[in-house]
């Protein structure tokens, strides 16, 4: 093919931009907790619900969350998927489980890995606990938890869990109103 007939199919235009990222006030508090192996949620002033990990706002009301709520590292599987594709940035061998979890005492789910059992044994409602990495590896990161593993407790009914959490939020708001 003559030079003229050749199509230009590739040009290289490397782009490098450096950013000083700041997580935000609320995520900073949460990540500081993670560095010490603690999970700290924040409570919505309007709904009484506990958000973990927090982003700074109650997504239901758009109001700032400030009250910190220490949370245990146990959780319930709300839903999950078995991933058969490798993640380019992860050393994880597929198939592995990505789950939507809710920490005990919290009202908002988050995504993390579930392992420590056969993939086939993971069920909705399964009780799990954080498998922390060695303390020497802890950073300001969700990654300090390698994955969540089954506790062996009996599974939880999700609808019943949701209902009990709503009751808990109502109780909190009632108690708050009474102290005022």
């Amino acid at each position, binding site marked *: 093919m003559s030079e003229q007939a050749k199509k230009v199919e590739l*040009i290289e*235009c490397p*782009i490098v*931009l*450096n*950013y*000083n*990222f*700041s*997580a*935000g*006030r*609320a*995520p*900073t508090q949460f990540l500081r907790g993670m560095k010490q192996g603690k999970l700290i949620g924040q409570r919505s002033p309007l709904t009484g619900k506990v958000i973990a990990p927090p*982003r*700074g*706002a*109650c*997504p*239901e*009301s*758009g*109001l*700032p969350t400030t009250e910190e709520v220490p949370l245990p590292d146990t959780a319930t599987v709300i839903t999950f998927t078995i991933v058969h594709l490798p993640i380019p940035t992860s050393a994880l061998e597929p198939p592995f489980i990505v789950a939507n979890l809710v920490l005990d005492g919290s009202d908002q789910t988050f995504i993390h890995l579930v392992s420590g059992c056969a993939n086939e044994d993971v069920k909705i409602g399964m009780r799990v606990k954080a498998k922390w990495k060695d303390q020497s590896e802890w950073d300001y990161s969700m990654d300090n938890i390698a994955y969540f593993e089954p506790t062996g407790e009996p599974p939880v009914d999700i609808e019943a869990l949701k209902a009990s959490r709503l009751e808990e939020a109502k109780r909190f708001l009632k108690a708050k109103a009474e102290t005022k």
Partner: protein
Amino acid sequence: MREVAIIAYAQTPLVRDCGAKNDVELVMEVVNAVKHQVGFTNQDLDFFCSGSCDYLGGSAFAFVNALDALGAVPPINESHVEMDAAWALYEAWLKIQTGHANTALVYGFGKCSQGDLPDVLTLQLDPYYTQPLWPDSISLAALQARALLDAGKITEEDMARVVQKSRRNAKSKPGTQLKGDYTIEQLLAEPKLVSPLRKHDCPPVTDGASAVILATREVAEKFHKRNAYITGIDHRIEAHQLGSRNLIDSMSTRIAGEAAGVAKGKVDIAELHTPFSYQELLVKQALGLGDDTVINASGGPLAGNIMMSAGLSNFGEVAMRIIKGEANRGVAHATSGPCLQQNLVAVLEGK
């Protein structure tokens, strides 16, 4: 045409670096402030629209995360533009015109301190011929300023006068970033940053957010005796390739200004989104504004320039002055792209 007024406006302080606050925390401040001004909850708002750019903070889908600040439970009717939020206001205004909404909340935000802003803005250029050369936003503005000086359209002294006025006006607005009293001699004695621009001819890097609430006349009349109505609005864009444009003119501003009806009456005030000093002179001329129009009483973008919200803020600044009775008729202007590529012009009138 439905009559649409701006009934509430809030802006964060204009700061070089807002520290640990993230986008959600910035937006929350202004969104809750405008709702509070008119006692609105989300149930009173038919539409939400925002303007932002993920490149500024370097985090993908920052505008989606920012929804946490709105309280989108139960779900809300929302849209976003990857532009200054003045264009989000335009979308909201259209939504009201079509009868799909009577009220709308519009907000814009930019945490510009996280990256090297002049370089980040290079990414808005044509990716084949221009962007790989990495001309930053200040250098491109300098090309335009040089062309204007060379054509005899402006002088360096004219540019210094714009800066002097901005710094002086900014003293009377709380929360402005750069303010003070300077003589023309002082300003002209400063060294050049990117010739012919001195540092003070360029906008500061600013973190912040702003928000306004739009409402139809029926709703607006419940809140203010006198309201600021948008009586004309238009926006135009010029060619992407800088080489195709006449840089010593702002045709897009002129056409948008004519379509918005700027010349149909006396213009008391104008808030122009002219981040570089020389641009105020160019836009003023393109809009046909005379010396009886008070331009950038807020200090304008030279006193603090929140990317993606500075244009929207101009609507708020003009509207609040009209509501207070300080002006009857004003112009709000917003720009986007390198060297005033795209311009939006609106006329606001007190009724």
